[in-house]
């Protein structure tokens, strides 16, 4: 179990025969807490005087309080509650009582109650509470939520699966989990209150299920499924060396989205034609602060090296909204999705931005590199960002550093404003990459990370389909290279539609490439065009989804779409 800053104790009961163990655990926790306190109290008395130490006298008094102890024990005996849960519940009740008081001096005692609770919890939970980085054996992580920063650290830990209360399928945490390549189930609402440290848990990523304390039959069934899963992904891997070509001979480039530098090599192994979106912000989401120019240069080189001469599109850092650097995460914005994020953040932090641009320009010498800016809303923003690239070039010239002067500079098209102005943008940008996650979010006014509304977040909304068609059409007419990254690119449900409106380059999580490729190889362009036209004729999301699902199933009957 991972607790954020504070201990947060899930509701948990124990079997009746374990009640005695829980009582013993509680008794031992009280005993150890008292021992610890008296040592600390002595030290305080010697070093700070009796007055400072006297507040500890009350802590000692509370730990010796039979009334309190009875309350906790009764909860364990009567309700078979786990010691941790019983303690936390009783202490919380006391905190509530203090909160209702009028005397500020007494209200302050809440802190003492919390302090006492934490001390007890530490003794009750013991080693059950572990730090991710210090895991010594494979474990499944169950938590209320994980920030992208924490998620980004998962590949370096022994975590083999994740289950979260919070989140929606397209949140950044979910994207990171997918690229991590291990099972993750999110949006479970209360999983962290139903599982306890040490429980045996099955994470079924395909069906988005978490099974706690499975019986032997279930366990066996899942062990068999695990073997079958590895076999299936082995079969898809056989497609690796075959190109994504339609039956009538049109080549579709399938690129991969990359969050960690090491993934670019993984993507190529999965059969990727290049890196269509390298999300550089994950370099910045780490406890030690933004990376230096050298660190960035090395990371970008690693991505380029991993791509083995295939094209690489580097997106400048997309920070803000739900992705905060350590320094910024405490500056709350009322509406972060509409706030200082992405290119806006870059343009307000030009020094940081220029460091990145210099690193990209230098790394570009080593491969086929393009760069693009996220969340462009206006031509002015694009021009300003491009000017900053020229400033960075001048810096490099002054120091005589080698860089690629002709790197292509493009934009992420992911706001309704940019979609409406696509023709104007086409006169100035080197290429367009459609980011459907943000485009859908802003077009439909749905927060994709909010599980209460995220079911309305859908690529099948007619407004989304028409916007995509218009953007692709405008780019084609202007002769501007247009690709699509974002979750839609990796969902087989949309592959036929996207091909049908004329997209020839899709960028997705490496894990999705084999399946999308399989689908492309089974259809003709004419078929895809017909399907796209029909999909565009519907006026509700439901009809579109049903239609696309039926058409996809006709082509790939054995796949779960």
């Amino acid at each position, binding site marked *: 179990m991972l607790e954020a800053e504070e201990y947060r104790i899930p509701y948990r009961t124990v079997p009746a025969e374990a009640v005695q163990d829980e009582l013993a655990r509680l008794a031992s926790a009280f005993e150890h807490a008292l021992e610890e306190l008296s040592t600390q109290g002595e030290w305080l008395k010697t070093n700070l005087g009796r007055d400072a130490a006297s507040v500890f006298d009350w802590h000692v008094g509370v730990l010796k309080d039979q009334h309190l102890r009875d309350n906790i024990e009764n909860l364990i005996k009567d309700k078979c509650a786990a010691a941790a849960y019983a303690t936390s519940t009783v202490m919380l009740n006391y905190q509530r009582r203090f909160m209702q008081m009028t005397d500020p001096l007494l209200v302050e005692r809440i802190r003492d*109650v919390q302090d006492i609770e934490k001390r007890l919890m530490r003794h009750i939970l013991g080693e059950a509470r572990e730090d991710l980085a210090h895991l010594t054996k494979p474990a499944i992580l169950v938590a209320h939520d994980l920030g992208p920063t924490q998620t980004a650290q998962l590949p370096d830990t022994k975590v083999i699966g994740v289950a979260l209360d919070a989140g929606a399928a397209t949140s950044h945490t979910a994207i990171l989990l997918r690229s991590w390549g291990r099972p993750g189930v999110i949006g479970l609402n209360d999983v962290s209150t139903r599982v306890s440290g040490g429980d045996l848990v099955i994470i079924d990523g395909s069906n988005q299920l978490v099974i706690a304390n499975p019986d032997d039959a279930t366990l066996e069934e899942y062990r068999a499924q695990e073997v079958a899963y590895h076999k299936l992904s082995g079969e898809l891997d056989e497609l690796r060396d075959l190109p994504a070509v339609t039956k009538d001979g049109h080549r579709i480039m399938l690129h991969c989205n990359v969050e960690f530098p090491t993934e670019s090599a993984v993507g190529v192994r999965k059969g990727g034609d290049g890196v269509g979106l390298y999300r550089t912000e994950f370099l910045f989401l780490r406890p030690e602060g933004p990376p230096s120019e050298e660190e960035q240069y090395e990371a970008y080189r690693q991505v380029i090296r991993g791509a083995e001469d295939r094209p690489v599109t580097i997106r400048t850092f997309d920070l803000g909204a739900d992705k905060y650097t350590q320094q910024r995460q405490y500056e709350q914005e009322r509406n972060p999705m509409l706030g200082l994020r992405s290119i806006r953040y870059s343009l307000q932090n030009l020094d940081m931005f220029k460091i990145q641009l210099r690193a990209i320009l230098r790394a570009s010498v080593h491969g086929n590199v393009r760069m693009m800016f996220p969340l462009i809303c206006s031509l002015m923003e694009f021009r300003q960002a491009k000017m900053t690239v020229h400033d960075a070039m001048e810096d490099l010239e002054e120091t005589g550093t080698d860089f690629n002067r002709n790197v292509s500079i493009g934009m992420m098209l992911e706001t309704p404003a940019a979609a409406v102005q696509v023709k104007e943008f086409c006169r100035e940008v080197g290429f367009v990459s459609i980011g459907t996650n943000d485009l859908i979010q802003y077009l439909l006014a749905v927060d994709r990370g909010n599980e209460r509304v995220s079911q309305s977040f859908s690529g099948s909304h007619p407004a989304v389909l028409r916007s995509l068609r218009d953007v692709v059409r405008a780019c084609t007419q202007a002769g501007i290279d247009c690709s699509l990254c974002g979750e839609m690119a990796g969902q087989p449900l949309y592959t036929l539609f996207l091909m049908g409106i004329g997209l020839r380059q899709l960028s997705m999580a490496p894990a999705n490439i084999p399946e999308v490729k399989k689908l492309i190889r089974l259809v003709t362009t004419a078929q895809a065009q017909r399907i796209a036209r029909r999909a565009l004729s519907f006026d509700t999301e439901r009809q579109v989804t049903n239609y696309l699902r039926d058409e996809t199933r006709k082509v790939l009957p054995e796949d779960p779409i």
Partner: protein
Amino acid sequence: MRDATVVNREGLHARPASRFVDRASTFASAITVQNVSRDGELVDGKSAMQMVLLEATQGCVLRVTARGGDAHEAAGSLAAFIEAGFELDPHQNTQQPDHAG
């Protein structure tokens, strides 16, 4: 049963509560305390947590009830202890508990 008025400025906060509980615990009798001024509930006089929850500020009247062999002595001693400001103020002429009640 004895009534006593809280005299110390900070009222019955954490420190006086611990002192009261320590004193109450020396008696065999069950001790209950009620904050009469707030018409509050009866709490266990040997519970550090409950005593603070009395929310007894300066001027509040506390009703100390004892039940048991040394009840009379306990009630008197504890009431006197309250009125002596829990013997906290070093400048005050600290009184020894009056076991005669």
